[in-house]
């Protein structure tokens, strides 16, 4: 296969859209393909309309594409809503016993999905697996891969068997009836076995790999799967996940755990982050390392719970009253979700401050294939630890000792005779509360001094495309796949364009972007928000004003084509304000 194939599974909540989509993605991943999968769903448990896109390619793929080659429509609405997205030569697979063949061109491939499920696999519940089978049959893909997958996925023997039967029924039906109806046949392309996982899974793996053993959290879409995965592995790996009564508690618990010496994590979305703001500053003034994930969704308030946005950047940069150093990392890809998390824990410990990982629903929930993370590259650096104290008198240890770097060696309570004293009031070197101005000033300076060395650890934004170009697109976080693909599209069309993408956002790595903006004639900041938050940050930190914005705030991720179209059409002034 030279080109890519885009599948879409669509139906209502409860019909198994998610599981068919995932299995489809995994089946192709097992065959050595690169895959990107993304679910679009509503904030309800049954009904409504959901769809899952699976993009399959031999080369790397990191964004969705809005055209559809194969639509597995589990209900009629799915056809009505998505037929316009069908590519030339695209096909719709649907249950022709339940849905009259829709008008239109000849790509409507009816399969008696439910009937086959009942006849071959013991029940209606298997309908979606029949559709899965049909989709794969259409492409002539290796059935054994799917069969193996289904047996793993449904470990109960009977259930596994029924699913394999259901898939087989769909597969055979397609092979027997649709020969020549679909141009592209897919066969496994390599033996390389990549991981297929979501941003949240990668992030949680990163935390575990970094030695994080404590998590406390409260469920909130799209962050919940982090706590769920952490909890699932707790028993095996000796981790603890406390399901807290609220986010305030979760945040405060992790500060306590970290103070006592254990790497600790919490994860939430905007509303929950709001409730964590006070605790964030507690970590700030007590200089306790913590890692907090804000998986953004459209706000304010409850907003659109299952959708995506990049609206929290300025919030997380400035959350909490008063001033203290923090780091903000915004992983752009599923790989980054792993590595940024490892980095987050190391920065937190080395600089003794809170590190915020800013992701979003799009990164959190999208599936992608990535090479297996190389554990040999994972380092765990706990930073400056006080060790001499073990047999010293406790009185000598000063938790907030003033140093040139601003970093005071940490001791953990109970691990030596050193007493570890800290306070959210302004305090002296010992950690006791104070009232005088000079001590206050010295501690403020000590804490803020950490920013100088912290800044050295921040990765500059990543350049994609040629160094010199007429137009530079600037982005951050999960839009990287879409932006870089838009660059590819536009370069193929002959435009001189490149992109600069931020993974690490604070302390702000401003030099590269200032240079890039100087080099380019036009610089457009691409953001999944309405007011251009990164553009403002760049202006503040570098004095450079972007030539325009490409903004999207309908809760949906960008596609490469949307960005490319904006550039082509010269519509790069979307800002509502700024």
């Amino acid at each position, binding site marked *: 296969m030279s080109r890519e194939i885009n599948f879409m599974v669509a139906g209502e909540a409860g019909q198994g859209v998610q599981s068919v989509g995932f299995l489809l993605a995994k089946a192709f991943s097992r065959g050595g393909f690169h895959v990107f999968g993304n679910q679009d769903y509503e904030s309800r448990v049954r009904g409504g309309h959901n769809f899952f896109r699976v993009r399959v390619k031999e080369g790397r793929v990191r964004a969705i594409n809005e055209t559809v080659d194969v639509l597995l429509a589990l209900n009629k609405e799915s056809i009505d809503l998505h037929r316009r997205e069908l590519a030339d030569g695209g096909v719709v697979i649907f249950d022709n016993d339940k849905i009259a063949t829709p008008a239109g061109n000849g790509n409507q491939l009816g399969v008696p999905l439910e009937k086959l499920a009942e006849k071959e696999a013991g029940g209606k519940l298997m309908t979606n697996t029949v559709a899965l089978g049909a989709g794969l049959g259409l492409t002539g893909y290796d059935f054994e891969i799917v069969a193996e997958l289904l047996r793993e996925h449904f470990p109960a023997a009977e259930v596994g068997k029924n699913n394999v039967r259901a898939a087989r029924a769909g597969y055979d039906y397609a092979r027997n009836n649709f020969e020549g109806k679909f141009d592209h046949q897919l066969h496994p392309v390599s033996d390389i*076995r990549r*991981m*297929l*996982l979501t941003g949240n*899974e990668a992030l949680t*793996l990163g935390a*575990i790999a970094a*030695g994080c*053993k*404590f998590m*406390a959290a409260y469920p909130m879409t799209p962050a919940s799967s982090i706590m769920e995965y952490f909890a699932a*592995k*707790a*028993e*095996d*790996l*000796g981790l*603890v996940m*406390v399901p*807290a*009564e*609220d986010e*305030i*508690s*979760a*945040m*405060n*618990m992790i*500060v*306590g*755990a*970290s*103070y*006592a*010496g*254990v790497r*600790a994590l919490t994860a939430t979305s905007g509303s929950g982050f709001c409730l964590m703001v*006070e*605790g964030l500053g*507690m970590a700030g003034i007590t200089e306790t390392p913590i890692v907090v994930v804000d998986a953004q969704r459209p706000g304010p308030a409850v907003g659109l719970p299952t959708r995506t946005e990049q609206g929290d950047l300025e919030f997380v940069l400035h959350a909490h009253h008063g001033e203290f150093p923090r780091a903000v990392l915004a992983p752009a890809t599923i790989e980054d979700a792993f590595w940024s998390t490892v980095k987050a824990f190391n920065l937190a410990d080395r600089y003794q401050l809170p590190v915020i990982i800013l992701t979003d629903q799009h990164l959190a929930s999208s599936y992608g294939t990535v090479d*297996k*993370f190389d*554990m040999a590259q*994972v380092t765990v650096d706990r930073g400056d630890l006080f060790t001499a104290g073990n047999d010293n008198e*406790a009185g000598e240890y000063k938790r907030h000792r003033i140093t040139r770097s601003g970093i005071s060696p940490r001791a*953990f*309570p*109970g691990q030596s*005779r*050193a*007493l*570890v*004293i*800290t*306070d*959210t*009031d302004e305090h002296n070197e010992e*950690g*006791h*509360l104070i009232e005088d101005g000079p001590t206050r000033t010295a501690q403020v300076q000590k804490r803020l001094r950490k920013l100088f060395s912290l800044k050295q650890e921040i990765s500059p934004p990543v350049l994609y495309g040629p160094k010199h170009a007429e137009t530079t697109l600037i982005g951050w976080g999960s839009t990287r796949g879409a932006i870089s693909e838009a660059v590819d599209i536009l370069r193929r069309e002959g435009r001189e364009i490149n992109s600069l993408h931020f993974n690490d956002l604070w302390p702000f790595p401003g030099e590269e972007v200032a240079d890039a903006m100087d080099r380019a004639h036009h610089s457009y900041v691409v953001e999944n928000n309405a007011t251009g938050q990164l553009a403002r940050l760049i202006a503040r930190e570098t004095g450079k004003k972007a030539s325009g914005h490409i903004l999207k705030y309908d809760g949906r991720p960008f596609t490469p084509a949307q960005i490319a179209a904006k550039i082509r059409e010269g519509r790069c002034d979307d800002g509502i304000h700024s």
Partner: protein
Amino acid sequence: MVSIADYAGLKPAWCPGCGDFGILKAVNQALVGLELEPHQVLMVSGIGQAGKLPHYSRSNLFNSLHGRPVPPAIGAKIANEELVVIVVSGDGDGYGEGGNHFIHAARRNHNLTYLIHNNQVYGLTKGQASPTSDTGYVTRTTPQGAPTSFNPMAVAIAADTSFVARGFAGDVAHLADLIKAGITHQGFALIDILQPCPTFNRKNTYNWYRERIYKLGADYDPADKLAAFAKAQEWGDRIPIGVIYRAERPTFEEQLPALKNGPLVKQRLEPVQVAKLLSEFI
């Protein structure tokens, strides 16, 4: 051997005559009585006059936020269960701002000792009504009188706190015993301490309390939940002090598989375990 001198901390900034002095004494006595060394103890306190106590004693100290001492204490205890973790809080801190943590930490039965300096007023912020201010008590925030007073003993029992006691700052020996019992208890041990605040609470004075309190005797069975709830209703003319309710049930911590092999802070994760995880995604 540990002695009281080992627990000598900074000079208290409390008002002369404050009940907090008695509590400080009782805490130190209890720790010495249990032969605990300062580095084995962690006090996590909130913000208020009560929250300053650990600065005036001497141990590990995490002085947290107003209303929030319980969650960091939970985190620290799980991170290192070898620490004796004592939460020091006020009535505003613990029952007002921190009310939600209280009822849920109780229910989950975290292995902590929870001291509430209950002066029935917000002391540090200068005398506003607290949740436990007596019904009708007039303060600057309740010029028409405070609403119905919060009953910590009753709520604690209802929330399944496994150790519910009341002490009095004016009876240090009795209080020290309660604190010892609370520390020894496996599970969430609430000790609400009647604490005169001569500066802002002109009603509930040493004398007011002394005239009313009585000690629960040997005839009282703290294992009987319904009787305990009935006992918890007593307030006004007669106020019981002592252990009002006690139940044996598994702590949150002892149910954690991760702690089976010792304190979390001492455990290491093997790279092979992580490698196995990665394989699950292939």
